[in-house]
């Protein structure tokens, strides 16, 4: 079929097709792009036909995967062409090239609106289609009422109305507020009486979206949906063209049943009865036929009916009918049906009372785990995971383990996580659980996350009965020739803690344990060595009486690692070396780890989190969240050695580090003590649930948990005379006060309000620079975090506390800033409303043992969303007069102004992006400025400011601010006032007696507030 008239395009497409290779193609495309670019440049000579041809070429090139970064304007401009052929091309190319966030679209809103409200039906269709496909929020707000009018208009033909329905659906998705529920619910119900099935299909899609958001308002639509379904299912009065392979519009049937699933119940018994009749007919009357399309269509309806039955909580009889159907489906040859059978069976699990019937199909489901199609295997895995309980856990988990060895890489991680969770949730006994996890690590070590082996260690630690068993198992795995590193980790840990329980077994003497573990050391990475070192220390401690040969061997290793480049390894080596020479005291110091406090499984939590992420509002999923979990809980019945575990953990973990501000003197001394000993958990306590495993050792004090005596013991070890002296050496205040900001934070902030880049904060360790770009109501700030030290800054955290009128999004801030490095963190800002509130950056980092926390105001202030605009006298005065008085125009006499020459004030205004318009005000002592304000919620707003100064008294002036929005007027007035009054440099060179300032924020008060971040924050918010 020839292309109607566009020879140039056909020739170009042929050329591209004839290219021998990618390189030739690129050359041909580049040549064409160059040609189009030059033709667009001198647009005058371009006929509408040529323009059309070129934008088609652009779309073709774009489709081939090349960047087309020009010519968008030409495509958009075709929309406003008067003739249909050009307009059509403009609309379709625009909606293919641009996405809803593109700026150019905004330019077209008016043209599009004119087409929608105009009389030309074909233009209406084009405009509605484009808005329906790529319309964004801007379109929602300006077009929704017009589109609604078209949808319910009696004079519009169906072809316009069905497009209007889907266009409205798009606008509603972009901004649900544009559909006014009160007025619209009745209209919606009327729409469902529509005879034209095209309009009805579109309207039904709209209804699905509306009820998913708010079903309450649309109750009146429910019986109409049931009626529609009856009409379709009984094939009453459906035009031939709306049947698809003999089935009355399967799509409309599916949509209608989807809408019904958003209503929680059906109360009216008659409606309920008729609906169940229809559903029953669908369930029973769907047969497998030869024609693929007919089969698909009828099963699309059937599966939707199944979902609706599940949702309605039908009687048990109907439910078991459904399960029987699904059981049939999962065994058929047709892969689509098998897939959907498994998927829907998984959904069915959430219905009570059918689990037992589903379990009958377990064998078939396990077969599907070996299906050649990964999509089907995934469904089978999900279903097995969902149907697992105490009765079948052993079988299912063993199947999963078996499958693990043959599964493709894409599935192994999910598979091992699921097996681990099931083993934990439904373990009939704990030794089985340990077996499963060790097998998992053995078979798929690369896919077993740390969480999984941490968890098994927790179980073993907290269950004494399990300890010898787990240690023996771990020992067995070590005999295998090549074992995964994770297995080395878990075995080392378990044998270090519990290896001594095996002492009497063959091959399990301390010496043998040590040598088999030590064999693995050359094969492991840096992260495993610290665990091995801890294990060696523990083995040494358990060897009573000491074995000099073993001792020398292990000491040799500690010695070797004392100069290791990895700080963690080096630290452990040094400490263990010193500690292990303490003789009998060693037994106390290196005692067994205490029990872990009860906590939710990190694995289950992880699985739940991912579920919440993907959860939709659908009724089925809501129910899923109410399912009870019978997960085992780590028990903690016997406090170890009679000492409360929390104290011991406290000693090691130093919870004090996170908040050094409100620490008591004694605690500070203690944490310092630990600090010099360097038995420090590098993680902040909250960062990792399982962090305690990484702590090298439990340092146990003697049974009495007296803080003072513990300090003495510990400091005795370190040859520090005593704890009292230790605290005396370090001035108590140093930890909190050691980090002083360089420069005045408030001054830096005020300077940044007037310019776009500069330093926000600086102290001896870090410098935070900032750079901003502002465009209309949006902005992008980049934070430059520079580490000034030769050691890394850790636990870096930046939290943005935005005021309600700003939408702010900070990209990821790395937890560690390497020495002398600078990291950049972009921060996106969007202004929603006029407001003077200021965003705060809550920034903290740790240097050595010091936690530094500062709260900094961010210069995303009102004037950043201003755009200076010059106005002439002809524009100014009518505006000024039309905004006649409060609340749009506000006047105030401001006192206590920092005295400055009028020129300086004009400069200040200009740097605030208020453009001073000289000559507008005849009085030379006055000043007039204008600007536009941008926010997401309003159109750009013109703002006018007039200042009348008094040459006799420069500390006072009269200010008048006007704009089209009362809030904006007020906020802008207050903002300008603040700038005139409390400029921080005021004290430095204006030697005037402090004037009585009526402002709540005098510089002094501000300065006082700055020393206390909390107060400062309170003041700001």
């Amino acid at each position, binding site marked *: 079929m020839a292309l109607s008239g566009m020879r140039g395009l056909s020739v170009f497409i042929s050329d591209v097709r004839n290219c021998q290779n990618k390189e030739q193609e690129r050359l041909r495309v580049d040549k064409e792009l160059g040609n189009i670019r030059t033709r667009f440049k001198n647009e005058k000579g371009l006929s509408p036909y040529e323009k059309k041809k070129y934008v088609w070429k652009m779309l073709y090139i774009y489709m081939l995967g090349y960047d087309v970064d020009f010519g968008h304007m030409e495509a958009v401009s075709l929309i406003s062409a008067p003739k249909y052929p050009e307009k059509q091309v403009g609309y379709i190319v625009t909606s293919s090239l641009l996405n809803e966030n593109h700026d150019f679209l905004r330019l077209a809103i008016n043209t599009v609106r004119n087409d929608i409200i105009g009389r030309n039906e074909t233009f209406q269709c084009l405009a509605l289609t484009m808005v329906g496909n790529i319309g964004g929020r801007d379109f929602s707000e300006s077009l929704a009422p017009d589109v609604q009018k078209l949808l319910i208009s009696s004079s519009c033909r169906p*072809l316009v109305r069905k497009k209007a329905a889907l266009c409205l659906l798009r606008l509603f998705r972009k901004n649900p507020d544009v559909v006014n529920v009160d007025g619209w619910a009745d209209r919606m119900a009327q729409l469902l009486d529509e005879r034209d099935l095209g309009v009805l299909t579109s309207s039904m899609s709209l209804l699905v979206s509306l009820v998913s958001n708010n079903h309450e308002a649309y109750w009146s639509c429910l019986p109409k949906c049931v009626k529609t379904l009856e009409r379709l299912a009984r094939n009453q009065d459906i035009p031939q063209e709306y049947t*698809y392979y003999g089935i009355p519009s*399967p799509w409309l049937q599916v949509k209608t049943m989807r809408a019904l699933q958003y209503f929680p119940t059906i109360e009216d018994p008659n409606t309920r009865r008729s609906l169940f009749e229809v559903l029953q007919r669908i369930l029973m009357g769907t047969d497998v036929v030869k024609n693929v399309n007919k089969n698909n269509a009828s099963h699309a309806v059937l599966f939707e009916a199944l979902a609706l039955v599940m949702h309605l909580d039908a009687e048990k009889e109907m439910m078991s009918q459904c399960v029987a159907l699904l059981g049939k489906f999962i065994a058929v040859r047709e892969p*689509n049906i098998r897939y959907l059978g498994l998927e829907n069976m998984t959904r069915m699990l959430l219905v009570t009372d059918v689990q037992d019937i589903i379990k009958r199909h377990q064998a078939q489901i396990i077969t599907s785990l070996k299906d050649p199609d990964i999509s089907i295997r995934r469904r089978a895995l999900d279903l097995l995971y969902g149907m697992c309980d105490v009765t079948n856990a052993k079988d299912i988990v063993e199947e999963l383990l078996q499958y693990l060895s043959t599964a493709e890489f894409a599935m192994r991680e999910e598979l091992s996580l699921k097996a681990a969770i099931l083993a934990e949730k439904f373990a009939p006994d704990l030794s089985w659980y340990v077996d499963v996890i060790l097998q998992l690590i053995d078979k798929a070590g690369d896919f077993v996350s740390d969480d999984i082996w941490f968890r098994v260690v927790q179980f073993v630690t907290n269950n004494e009965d399990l300890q010898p068993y787990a240690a023996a198992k771990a020992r067995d795995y070590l005999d295998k020739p090549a074992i995964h590193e994770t297995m080395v980790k878990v075995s080392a840990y378990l044998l270090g803690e519990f290896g001594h329980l095996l002492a009497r077994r063959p091959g399990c003497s301390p010496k043998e344990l040590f040598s088999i573990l030590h064999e693995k050391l050359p094969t492991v990475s840096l992260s495993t060595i610290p665990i091995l070192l801890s294990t060696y220390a523990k083995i040494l401690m358990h060897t009573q009486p000491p074995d000099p040969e073993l001792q020398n061997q292990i000491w040799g290793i500690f010695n070797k690692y004392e100069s290791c480049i990895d700080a963690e390894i080096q630290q452990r080596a040094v400490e263990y070396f010193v500690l292990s020479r303490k003789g009998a005291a060693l037994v106390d110091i290196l005692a067994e780890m205490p029990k872990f406090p009860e906590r939710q499984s990190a694995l289950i939590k992880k699985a739940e989190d991912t579920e919440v992420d993907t959860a939709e509002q659908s009724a089925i999923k809501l129910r899923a969240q109410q399912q009870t979990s019978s997960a085992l809980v780590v028990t903690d019945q016997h406090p170890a050695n009679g000492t409360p575990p929390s104290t011991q953990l406290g000693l090691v973990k130093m919870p004090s580090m996170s908040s050094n501000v409100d620490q008591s003197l004694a605690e500070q001394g203690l944490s310092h003590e630990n600090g010099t000993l360097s038995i420090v958990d590098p993680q902040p306590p909250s960062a990792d649930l399982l962090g305690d495993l990484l702590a090298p050792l439990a340092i146990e004090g003697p049974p009495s948990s007296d803080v003072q005596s513990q300090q003495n013991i510990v400091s005795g070890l370190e040859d520090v005379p005593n704890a009292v002296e230790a605290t005396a050496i370090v001035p108590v205040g140093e930890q909190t006060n050691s980090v002083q900001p360089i420069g005045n934070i408030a001054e830096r902030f005020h300077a940044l309000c007037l310019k776009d880049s500069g330093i926000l904060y600086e102290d001896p360790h870090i410098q935070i620079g900032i750079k901003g770009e502002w465009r209309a109501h949006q902005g992008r700030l980049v934070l430059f975090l520079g580490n000034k030290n030769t050691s890394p800054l850790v636990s870096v955290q930046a939290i943005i506390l935005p005021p309600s009128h700003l939408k702010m999004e900070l990209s990821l801030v790395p937890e560690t800033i390497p020495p002398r490095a600078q990291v950049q963190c972009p921060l996106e800002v969007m202004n929603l409303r006029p407001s003077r509130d200021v965003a705060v950056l809550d920034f903290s980092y740790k240097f050595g043992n010091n936690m530094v926390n500062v709260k900094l105001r961010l210069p995303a202030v009102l004037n950043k969303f201003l755009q200076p605009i010059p106005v002439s006298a002809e524009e100014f005065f009518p505006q000024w007069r039309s905004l006649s008085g409060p609340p749009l125009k506000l006047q105030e006499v401001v006192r206590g102004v920092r005295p400055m020459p009028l020129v300086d004030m004009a400069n200040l205004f200009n740097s605030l992006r208020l453009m001073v318009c000289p000559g507008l005000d005849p009085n030379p002592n006055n000043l007039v400025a204008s600007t536009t304000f941008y926010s997401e919620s309003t159109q750009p707003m013109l703002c006018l400011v007039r200042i009348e100064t008094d040459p006799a008294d420069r500390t006072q002036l009269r200010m008048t601010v006007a704009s089209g929005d009362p809030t904006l007027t007020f906020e802008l007035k207050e903002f300008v006032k603040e700038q005139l009054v409390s400029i921080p440099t005021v004290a430095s060179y204006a030697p005037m007696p402090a004037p009585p300032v009526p402002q709540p924020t005098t510089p002094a008060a501000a300065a006082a507030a700055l020393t206390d971040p909390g107060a400062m924050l309170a003041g700001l918010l």
Partner: protein
Amino acid sequence: MIHFVLLISRQGKVRLTKWYSPYTQKERTKVLRELSGVILTRGPKLCNFVEWRGYKVVYKRYASLYFCMCIDEEDNELEILEIIHHYVEILDRYFGSVCELDLIFNFHKAYYILDELLIAGELQESSKKTVARLIAAQDSLVEAAKEQRSSISNIIAQATK
């Protein structure tokens, strides 16, 4: 909701893309690369659904062309599969036994027809007859404009301008 529609040839050449959810240029390229990798390598006797990044892609191969539509996880897959077939039948009727070459040289027609079928990622019209009628009407509008332009009076008007 359908998030996007792709037509990809067996060699991985893109024949049509339509995006109903906002994707940037970069994301579009990435989606195309990823999905052609997944779909083109699937064997012939497997099911028509692929799970991908929390979405589902329903696809079907017709001769050398793969028609793909990406939907939400809980959407009805078979319904979408038949929308694809519905689209193919309409193309077939319009071109008269459609082949890949038709869609290459008349890719704009494929776009027009798709716009009569789907809006906002939802089915707009399920009657093949109605779609065919509307497309024919569009074609004649374009023809009429062309004739008008080429009429002599128009040429004279152009010349004297």
